[in-house]
């Protein structure tokens, strides 16, 4: 895990910014241009943010629940819990929480004195209304829906306290409730029809939605009655420095970067690796905030030939040289991962030994697995069938650098005898290919706070498709021992045991050669030198602009 440089500076240097920023800064690192070090915070100005993601069709992150929604909703909605700089879960809108000894009753008390943007007071009723909203099929929540899946019913104890009855113990619940996809919004707001709530959800965040000009911008303005839930907030003014944020959508990476360079916008996301590597030289700030949950990885479909044979899976791991590809294509902005989990997950383990490049070993393994013949094009053949790997790639989720990396793998695996068939698809077609099991290799990012993402990705239950055909266990791992470990890990109330169980579970997946980790889910932001105070993020590493200010 990378130390948060800005947080460190705050403790040692002039305390121009509050401790609160450091407390929930998450695991991001920034390289501010030198000028910003001595800058005194000034209030005023509107920051222009340019996102490369598709414009959400709904600003309420309960509906659907993807990362672009989280990025913008992090400004106007807050969660019951969040993460501190060490990755530990701490209460946020919640004041305190406790769990019964059988793990089946979770009591949460919210802070007193917090009001939603629509004037509604934050009470225990909000917990109930929000979790029920997530569980309502008409909301069409996918991320948040899974996160609160074990909450059976909710009892209101008093004005501020709610009791959540669980169907099974769930030590990941607080992590689940730290994500923007389960953020708390006004129960009054939720009573509106969905289109109205989508257009302007009423949260408790430092900014509120003023208007949304479709395809142009979401206009956020300072919430004047904001109360920071951080107990030790030392900020003179509890409201944001910025008057507001203009949240734009500029799909083209080159246009976005040009707009940043010319000063038309102040912050951009999804920058191309080459522009990240030259950011410092160009006087731009850079925030590197890897997403939590799973690492970016290739999953090997073990439910059918050829990857139903562990020797073929192992051979694949040794047949390609991933590291040099990552270094050259990502300009050293992405670090190779050997873990199933993101580097910001404290319970992740790494095993580099499984992923050495060794063509000799790969050839031996494939020979042993019976892929002994070669056809005229040099690919291996067994029983008249070529050693072909179908690899649908989502152009929506794989940036150009990643697509190039896959093409390099394709070339590197050929001498060993693998034929990799890359198919570039739009998101719907890509999900369609997965649902029909038309894949041997796939890269499917998954963001979630905490190691319980492992259960979603590797429990055999996750091979059973949802009505839409979607399933999360793309590697098709079906291992009763692993299932048990993942369930136990979620139910124990002993931290050490939890870590140990997750360690064993990860080792099983790594030993089975089901997954080739590549790097953390990349989450970079570039900003111009008149932007200061970047670094505070939510539990899912989406930046918060509460402490950000602009040069005047």
């Amino acid at each position: 895990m990378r130390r948060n440089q800005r947080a460190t500076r705050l403790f040692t240097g002039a305390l121009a910014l509050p401790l609160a920023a450091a407390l929930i800064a998450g695991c991001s690192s920034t390289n501010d241009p030198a000028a910003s070090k001595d800058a005194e915070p000034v209030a005023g100005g509107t920051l222009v943010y340019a996102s490369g993601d598709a414009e959400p069709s709904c600003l309420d992150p309960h509906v659907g629940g993807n990362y672009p929604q989280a990025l913008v909703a992090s400004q106007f909605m807050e969660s019951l819990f969040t993460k501190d700089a060490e990755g530990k879960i701490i209460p946020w809108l919640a004041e305190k929480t406790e769990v019964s000894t059988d793990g089946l009753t979770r009591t949460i008390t919210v802070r007193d004195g917090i009001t939603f943007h629509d004037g509604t007071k934050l009470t225990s009723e909000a917990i109930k209304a929000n979790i029920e909203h997530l569980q309502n099929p008409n909301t069409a929540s996918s991320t948040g829906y899974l996160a609160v899946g074990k909450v059976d019913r909710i009892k209101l104890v008093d004005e501020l306290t709610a009791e959540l009855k669980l169907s099974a113990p769930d030590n990941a619940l607080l992590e689940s409730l730290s994500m923007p996809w389960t953020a708390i919004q006004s129960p009054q707001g939720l009573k509106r029809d969905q289109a109205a709530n989508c257009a302007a959800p009423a949260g408790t965040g430092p900014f509120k939605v003023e208007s949304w000009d479709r395809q142009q911008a979401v206009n956020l303005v300072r919430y004047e009655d904001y109360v920071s839930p951080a107990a030790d907030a030392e900020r003179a003014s509890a409201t944001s420095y910025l008057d507001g944020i203009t949240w734009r959508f500029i799909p083209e990476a080159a246009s976005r970067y040009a707009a940043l360079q010319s000063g038309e916008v102040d912050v951009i996301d999804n920058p191309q690796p080459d522009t990240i590597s030259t950011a410092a030289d160009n006087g731009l700030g850079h925030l590197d905030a890897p997403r939590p949950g799973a690492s970016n990885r290739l999953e090997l479909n073990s439910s059918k030939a050829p990857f139903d044979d562990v020797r073929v899976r192992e051979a694949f791991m040794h047949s390609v040289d991933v590291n040099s590809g990552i270094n050259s294509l990502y300009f050293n902005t992405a670090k190779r991962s050997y873990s199933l989990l993101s580097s910001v997950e404290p319970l992740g383990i790494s095993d580099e030994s499984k992923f050495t490049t060794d063509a000799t070993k790969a050839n031996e393994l494939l020979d042993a697995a019976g892929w002994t013949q070669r056809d005229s094009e040099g690919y291996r053949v067994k029983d008249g069938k070529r050693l072909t790997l179908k690899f649908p790639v989502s152009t929506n989720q794989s940036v150009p650098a990643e697509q190039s990396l896959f093409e390099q793998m394709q070339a590197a695996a050929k001498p060993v005898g693998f034929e990799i068939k890359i198919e570039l698809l739009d998101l719907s077609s890509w999900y369609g290919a997965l649902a029909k099991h038309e894949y041997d290799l796939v890269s499917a990012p998954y963001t979630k706070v905490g190691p319980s993402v492992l259960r979603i990705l590797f429990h055999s239950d996750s091979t059973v498709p949802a009505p839409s055909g979607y399933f999360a266990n793309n590697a098709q791992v079906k291992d009763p021992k692993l299932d048990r470990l993942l369930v136990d890990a979620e139910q124990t109330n002993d931290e050490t045991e939890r870590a140990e169980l997750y360690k064993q579970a990860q080792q099983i997946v790594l030993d089975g050669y089901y997954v080739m980790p590549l790097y953390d889910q990349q989450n970079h932001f570039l900003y111009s030198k008149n932007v200061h105070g970047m670094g505070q993020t939510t539990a899912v590493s989406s930046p918060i602009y509460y402490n950000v200010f602009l040069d005047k």
Partner: protein
Amino acid sequence: MKLLAWLGRKVGGALVVLWLVATAIFIGVRLIPGDPAEAIMGGPGSQASAEALANARSEYGLDLPIVSQYFLFLAKLIRLDFGTSYSFKDPVLQIMGEVLPPTINLALMALAVAWLLALLLALLAMRANKFGQLLGNAVEIVAAAVPHFWLGAVLIMLFSSMLGWLPAVANGTAAGLVLPVLTLALPLAGFLTQLMRDSLNTAMGSQFALAARARGESRLTVFRRHGLRHAALPALGLTGWAFSSLLSGAVVVEAIFARPGLGRSLLSAVLARDIPMVTGIALFSALVYIVVMALTEAIERLIDPAGAES
């Protein structure tokens, strides 16, 4: 009377074309992979329950037999009911009303600039020497051939990143319109000039031009009074096509310059499998094409009544 008959033929033809287009779209959108109910319930990869999907299907009439769906679709179209967008949950007509003006604005300006440039280039070419002609020809071919996405990127690099004269992305000001309009107009101008020059050369070398010159008229007057008319005709005939090409070019240009508009809506609607939006935009584009074609035909008749009769 003749005009009325012409108008009647046009409207009748237009209705047939629209019906054909609507039918083609109806079939086409059902061939692309992806479950519409899923598109309604949160898009690809959603974890909507079977119950939620069933609700969505019945609410949008997706559980009816395909023939019933087709006639229901046509019946709604006749009443100008394009349905509700799957992803925005707003009426398609309302969304199109929001995104249409910026695109029409962009396309009309690009068309005007392209014509202006084409006329200017044609005039220059007429006065140029052999080398100038060759150079002009080369420039036109290159301009006509460059794809919008490349041209847009180069213009941004040049005028925004390097020179800092113009904004890289649209910002609602006039300056923000310059690069998008040029990106659309330059290839079209190249194409129009090519068309014009051929007929201009023929016209200027023809008997009547020579006769006019012999009467003592200047080259410019001959160009203005005789050449231009001949040169403009073939280009004008293709303006209907040009306008529809501008609309499709808008898909790329609106994405590059982050402009709101019909093209960007179409792109996101296709990706989100938002069938009512795709249908609405496609039908609308067909309508625009028909109207522009009819208009250009009318103008052609004004310029060259003899040609229209044949």
